[in-house]
C-alpha cells in the first residue's frame, strides 16, 4: 500500500494550482461565463502548451502518455478553480472514445490535434429521456449509399457550441435489443443540418440542445463497430463519471477552505464565529465529507487503472460524492450567511458547479439503484 501521489502528480497539482490561481481568479470565471463562447480560448491555448490536452494520449499520437490518476489530479484543481473549459469533453471523453474504438486513421487524424488543443470534441448522448440507458436513444442513423443520415435531437450536450467534432450516439438497428442497436459517429460540428442552441443552465456551463436534421455523414465516420456503440458509451461514461467526482472534490475542498477562513475571520458576539462549537461541528462534517469524497475517488481510480471490475465502486463513489459535496456547499452557505448568498462572493459559483456535477452522469439515486440491483 502506498497512498502517496507520484512526484509527477504532485508537480502537476502544484503547477495547475498556481496557473489557475493566477489565470482564472473567480472574477474571471464570471467574465468567461458571460462571454459568448463561455470559456477563454487564450487560456485554452496556454493549457495546451502545458501539455494538459494530451495527458491521456500516448506518445505515438503526440500526447504525454499519462495515467488516469494524473488527469484526475488535474480535474480536481479545475473544480477548485471552477474553471469553465471543455477539458473533460475533449481530453477525457473524446480521447477515451477514440482510443477505445477509433480506427488507426481516426486516431492519427484526431488525437494529435486534440493533444495540441487545436480541436475540441463533445459527447452528444442524452435525449429527452436523460436516463443514460440505450433504450432512451431515439436519434436514428440510416444508411444511404456511402453515407449515414442522422436525424434526432440531443440535449445537455456539454461544449457542443465550441466543439469541432461531436460524438453522436444513434440507433442503427430498429429491431435488435437497445444495447445491440446503438452506433457512434464522429460528426463534424459544422456539418449541414446541425443546429445548436445553448441551454441557459444554472452553472452557465454551455450545455446545448443539438438538432440533427438529416445530417449526412460518410460511413468512415462510424466510431467503433456498427451496433456495438453502447459498449463504448458505457466505458467512457465510467471515466466521465469519476472525473465528475474529482471535479466535485475540488469544488468541495475550496468551499471548505473558504468557509473555515470565514469562520476564523468573521467576528460576532465579540469572538470569531469559528470558536462556537455549533460552527466548529459543521466545519468538521464538511472536512469529513471532502476527505472521504477524495479518497473514495482515488480508490475507484486505482481500481480502474488496475483493470479490476469497478462498476460498483464507480456507482458508490458518484452516489457518495454527489451528496457529500452538496452537503458541504449547503453548510458552507449557512456559515457564510448573507455574504455567501450575494454574487459579490465566489461561493455561488461553487454551489452551481456542484449542482450540475451532481445531476449529470447519474445522480445519487440513479447510482444507488445500480448498487441495490447488485446486492439485493
Amino acid at each position, binding site marked *: *500500500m*502506498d497512498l502517496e501521489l507520484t512526484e509527477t502528480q504532485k508537480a502537476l497539482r502544484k503547477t495547475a494550482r498556481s496557473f489557475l490561481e493566477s489565470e482564472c481568479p473567480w472574477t474571471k470565471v464570471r467574465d468567461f461565463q458571460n462571454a459568448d463562447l463561455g470559456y477563454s480560448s487564450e487560456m485554452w491555448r496556454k493549457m495546451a502548451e502545458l501539455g494538459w490536452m494530451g495527458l491521456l494520449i500516448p506518445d505515438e499520437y503526440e500526447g504525454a502518455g499519462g495515467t488516469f490518476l494524473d488527469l484526475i489530479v488535474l480535474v480536481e484543481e479545475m473544480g477548485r478553480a471552477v474553471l469553465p473549459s471543455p477539458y473533460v469533453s475533449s481530453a477525457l471523453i473524446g480521447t477515451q472514445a477514440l482510443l477505445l474504438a477509433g480506427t488507426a486513421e481516426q486516431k492519427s487524424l484526431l488525437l494529435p490535434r486534440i493533444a495540441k488543443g487545436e480541436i475540441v470534441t463533445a459527447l452528444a448522448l442524452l435525449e429527452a429521456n436523460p436516463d443514460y440507458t440505450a433504450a432512451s436513444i431515439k436519434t436514428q442513423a440510416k444508411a444511404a449509399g456511402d453515407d449515414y443520415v442522422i436525424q434526432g435531437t440531443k440535449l445537455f450536450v456539454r461544449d457542443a457550441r465550441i466543439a469541432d467534432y461531436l460524438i453522436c450516439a444513434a440507433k442503427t438497428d430498429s429491431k435488435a435489443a437497445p444495447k445491440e442497436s446503438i452506433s457512434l459517429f464522429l460528426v463534424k460540428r459544422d456539418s449541414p443540418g446541425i443546429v445548436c442552441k445553448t441551454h441557459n443552465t444554472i452553472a452557465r456551463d454551455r450545455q446545448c440542445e443539438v438538432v440533427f436534421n438529416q445530417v449526412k455523414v460518410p460511413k468512415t465516420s462510424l466510431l467503433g463497430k456498427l451496433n456495438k456503440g453502447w459498449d463504448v458509451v458505457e466505458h467512457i461514461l465510467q471515466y466521465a463519471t469519476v472525473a465528475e467526482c474529482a471535479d466535485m472534490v475540488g469544488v468541495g475542498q475550496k468551499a471548505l477552505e473558504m468557509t473555515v477562513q470565514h469562520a*476564523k475571520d468573521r467576528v460576532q458576539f465579540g469572538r470569531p464565529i469559528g470558536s462556537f462549537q455549533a460552527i466548529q461541528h459543521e466545519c468538521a462534517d464538511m472536512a469529513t465529507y471532502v476527505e472521504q469524497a477524495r*479518497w473514495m475517488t482515488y*480508490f475507484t481510480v486505482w481500481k480502474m487503472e488496475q483493470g479490476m471490475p469497478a462498476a460498483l465502486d464507480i456507482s458508490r463513489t458518484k452516489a457518495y460524492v454527489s451528496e457529500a459535496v452538496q452537503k458541504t456547499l449547503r453548510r458552507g452557505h449557512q456559515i457564510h450567511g448573507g455574504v455567501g448568498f450575494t454574487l459579490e462572493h465566489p461561493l455561488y459559483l461553487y454551489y452551481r458547479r456542484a449542482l450540475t456535477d451532481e445531476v449529470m452522469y447519474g445522480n445519487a439515486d440513479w447510482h*444507488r439503484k445500480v*448498487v*441495490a440491483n447488485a446486492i439485493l
Partner: protein
Amino acid sequence: MDFSFSKETQRLREEVRQFFDKEWPKENRNWRGWEQPDAPEFLEKAERLNKLLAAKGWLALSYPKQYGGLGRTLEEHYIFHQELLRANAPNLKAGCAVLLGPVILRYGTEDQKKRFNTALAQGEMDFCLGYSEPNAGSDLASLELKAVRDGDYYIMNGSKIYTTNAHIVRRCFLLARTDPKAAKHKGLSLFIVDMKTPGITIRPIHCMGDVRTNETFWDNVKVPVADRLGEEGQGWRYVATALDFERLWIYNTIWVRKLFDDLVAFIKTADRDGWRPREDPDIRTKVAQISVDLEVCQVMEYKILWMLGQGKIPYAEASMLKVWASELYQRMTDTITQALGPYAQLSQGVLGSPLDGGLIQQHESSIGATFLAGGSEIQRTIIAAAGLGLPAA
C-alpha cells in the same frame, strides 16, 4: 498510488481465514456471543482459541521479536485483526494486544515491555480501561482518582466507571491524578495495575444490548512504581496516543460490514406469505446507501492504516472515522430494523427472528457507539481544532 496489500499480506489473510474456518467454525459465530465475554462456556472456548493464536504468534504480529512478536508489518497485523473480526471470534486479548500493546512498546520501560508485551503475545495478558469516572466522562482530564507516592508505591483512592471487563482481566490501564496542583491535563499519570491488588472492589452495571460493564472502587490500593507507564505527569499524552490507536482498531469496520452482509442475506431470503422486503423500492435505496457508506469506511481505514505505517499520527482522520463508523453502525441497524418491520423486534429463539436475535442486540449495542471512546461531539471538536485550526471555544 497503490491500495493493494503485499503478496505476503494476502497470503497471511488466506492462512488466517482458513485457520478461523477450522478453529472457530460457523456454530461458534453469532451476533450475541462475543458481547458476553464472561459466560463460562464462552470463556473456555475463547481461551482455547487464544492459545492457538498465541502459538502462531499472531496476537503480536507486529511486535518486535524480542517481545514475543513476529516483527511483521502493521498492515499484516491489521489484516489478521480484520479476519478475526470477520470470523466473529473473541477479541478481548487480540484487541488488547493491538490497542494497548503499542502504547507500552512506545512509552514503557524495558522491564514493562518484557512483562506486558511478551505476555500479550502469549495470550496471557488482558486489560480493562480505568479512564472514566462518575464525574469525568467527556471532560476526562478532570478526573479525581488520587495516586499518592509513598516510597516505591503509589496509593490509589477513588472510583472508576465503565471499567468493562474489570471482573475478568488481569490488569487495568489506570489514569490517576498524581499532582493535584498542576493544570488538569498535566497532573495525570498512567498505571498498569494488577487487578488482584487488595482494595479493588467491582460492582457490575448491566447495560442495553446485553452489555455488562462495571464500576470499580479503589480503596488504598498499593501500586508499585514499576507499574507506572512512562513519566509521572505524562499520562494524558499516553492516553491520547492509545485513543488514536483505539479509534482505528475498534472501528475496524469489517464486522459492521459482516453484520450488514448477514442482514442483507436475511432480507434477500425473507419471504413470508407474500412479504418480501427486498422488493420494496424504499428499502432497496436505503440498503444501497448503507453499502456506499461502508465502502467509505473501508477506504478511510486504508488511509489511516497507511498513515500509521508511515509513522504519521492521524489525529483528524481517526476522529473522522470514529464519527462516521459509529453513526453508520446506528444508521445501518436502524435501516434494517425499519426494513424488517415487526420481525425486527424479535429476540433469540423466535421463528423469523433476524440473525436469531442478533439484529436487535446489535441495534441496542449501537446506541453506545456514538458516545463511547470519545463522543461524536468530542470527535468533531478534535477535527475542528486539529484538522482545521479553528480557535478554542
